[in-house]
């Protein structure tokens, strides 16, 4: 864990949002909505919570990060660029030929990516495998996974959840980015999830639902989880807003997978930068 204040983390979240949007704007494609909804927890993980070393991305005792909702990789790439895994200028290569920043995370091409993801519903199983290996090898590392609420419609999520319980993986933390929207509409319209916190709780996770845009709540929750070694995997459902921080993107289904044009980009950056006022 790094000693960094909540105010500084909020600033990091702003930088992540700006960087991710710059990337997507430059690439003229990508997924802004879900990148922005996950930005605050990604900031807290990369700049405070995770025990990682950018000079040694494959350090075997490192904490692992699994972006199961792989399409929002710009927010992870922003963190990797700002943490020094790659030169900052790499952000201008998103989705371009030869880039470590592939359209979805590719562990073979990008330092700091612990597992390739992109096909929804699969990442949590990988996270379980990593956490299980850590337990079996008596290692202290932890595994942090971010899944989308829409992604929880995939059955494999629940297969993974039950195996995390069976093997008592209290070194696994699952964040559900519960922003309520998916490509075809609201999750309520497309396929209601019911209460995801209750679902994970029923499976046997230790669960909590918090405001996913409150850095105070995120940090407080991470502090609690760090000391909770009770044999139960953790699930934190984050109440989030898709497109958070940009007025015209917030809660708009259409901003799932399109890039802002020049005017929209400039307005977005201005709004995000003004976020701390």
């Amino acid at each position, binding site marked *: 864990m790094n000693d960094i204040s909540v105010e500084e983390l909020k600033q990091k979240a702003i930088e992540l949002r700006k960087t991710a949007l710059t990337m997507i704007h430059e690439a003229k494609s990508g997924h802004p909505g879900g990148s922005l909804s996950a930005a605050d927890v990604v900031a807290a993980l990369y700049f405070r919570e995770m025990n990682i070393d950018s000079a040694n991305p494959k350090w075997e005792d490192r904490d692992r990060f699994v972006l199961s909702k792989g399409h929002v990789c710009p927010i992870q790439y922003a963190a990797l660029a700002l943490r020094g895994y790659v030169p900052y200028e790499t952000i201008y290569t998103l989705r371009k030929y030869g880039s470590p920043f592939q359209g979805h995370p590719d562990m073979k091409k990008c330092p700091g990516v612990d597992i390739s993801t992109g096909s929804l519903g699969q990442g949590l199983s*990988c996270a379980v495998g990593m956490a299980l290996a850590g337990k079996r090898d008596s290692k202290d590392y932890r595994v942090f996974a971010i899944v989308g609420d829409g992604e929880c419609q995939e059955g*494999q999520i629940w297969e993974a959840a039950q195996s995390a319980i069976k093997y008592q993986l209290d070194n696994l933390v699952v964040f559900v980015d519960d922003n309520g929207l998916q490509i075809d509409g609201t999750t309520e319209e497309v396929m209601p999830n019911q209460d995801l916190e209750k679902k994970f709780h029923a499976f046997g996770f230790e669960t909590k639902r918090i405001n996913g845009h409150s850095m105070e709540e995120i940090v407080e929750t991470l502090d609690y989880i760090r000391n909770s070694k009770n044999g139960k995997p953790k699930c934190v459902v984050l109440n989030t807003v898709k497109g958070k921080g940009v007025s015209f993107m917030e809660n708009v289904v259409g901003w799932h997978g399109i890039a802002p044009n020049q005017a929209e980009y400039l307005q977005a950056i201005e709004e995000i930068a003004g976020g701390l006022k």
Partner: protein
Amino acid sequence: MSVVEKDSLPKKATREAFGDEIVKLGKKNKNIYVVDIDIGKSCKTTEFAKQLPNQHVNVGIAEQNGAGLAAGLATTGKIPFVSTYAVFGSLRMAEQIRQEICYPNLNVKIACSHGGLTPANDGGSHQSIEDMGVLRTIPNMTVIMGADYYSTRKLVEQAAEIYGPVYLRFTRDAVPIIYDENEEFTIGKAKKIKDGKDIAIVANGDTVYLAIEAAKQLEKDGISVKLLDMHTIKPLDREAVVECLNIGKIITVEDHNILNGLGSAVCEVIAEEGRGIVRRIGVQDQFGQSAPYEMLLELNGITIENIVKTAKEMLK
């Protein structure tokens, strides 16, 4: 090489070979894991689970999670063998194998029993006639089926030693032991069982035995047969196939759909080389049904008689 010459060969299912070999390997290398999908008894992994519980995982009836979990294990340096039936291990997990194992080129082995038509009385739902074809089209994947107990043990051992995804397919039923226990096998290198000059037969899995018997009959009639055990269909031993082109006439034999399996793989080389002809003996692009294994083979012409007949027709 020496093929055991006996009138009545001892038989053993190649899934037994996996079960026996994996215990040996697991004891030698603590990184070797078995991921079971509830059918350890059928897949012969119960001994591994008993003797090496710390290297064993059972995910229950959840193939997709089993594949993903194995990928996660592999990122930490483990060498997981995911063990289930061929039809589920290939198709039910196909996308997980593609996305989380082959795309990142992780060191995961998919070790599957009940390959081909061998789950005979279970019916068409449980028979696996597409698996090797589907998996050979995924980059980074190696695809293997040993012909008997001893070759399968050697191939499992080698699969553990090479880095990367490997699909291994075993038989449910006992198949004749045709190789000496000390015979060596190399992944990607065809085993030449015998040389000949009139016709080449390329077989894999338990059909190698049928090909050996067919070759014996043909030789009695004065036809010289070259016989290859193509245990690895990917990477295919192209050189060995090209060598068969010196003969020009090739028969492939497999317990797999004739589409996209061994026969197709051999045809690809033949077409690219632009010479030679091939007849494919295998499952005739049709589903099986509940019936004795031998009957299912017969319904598809996967028999000694049909190999002999096909060879003679080609030589007319």
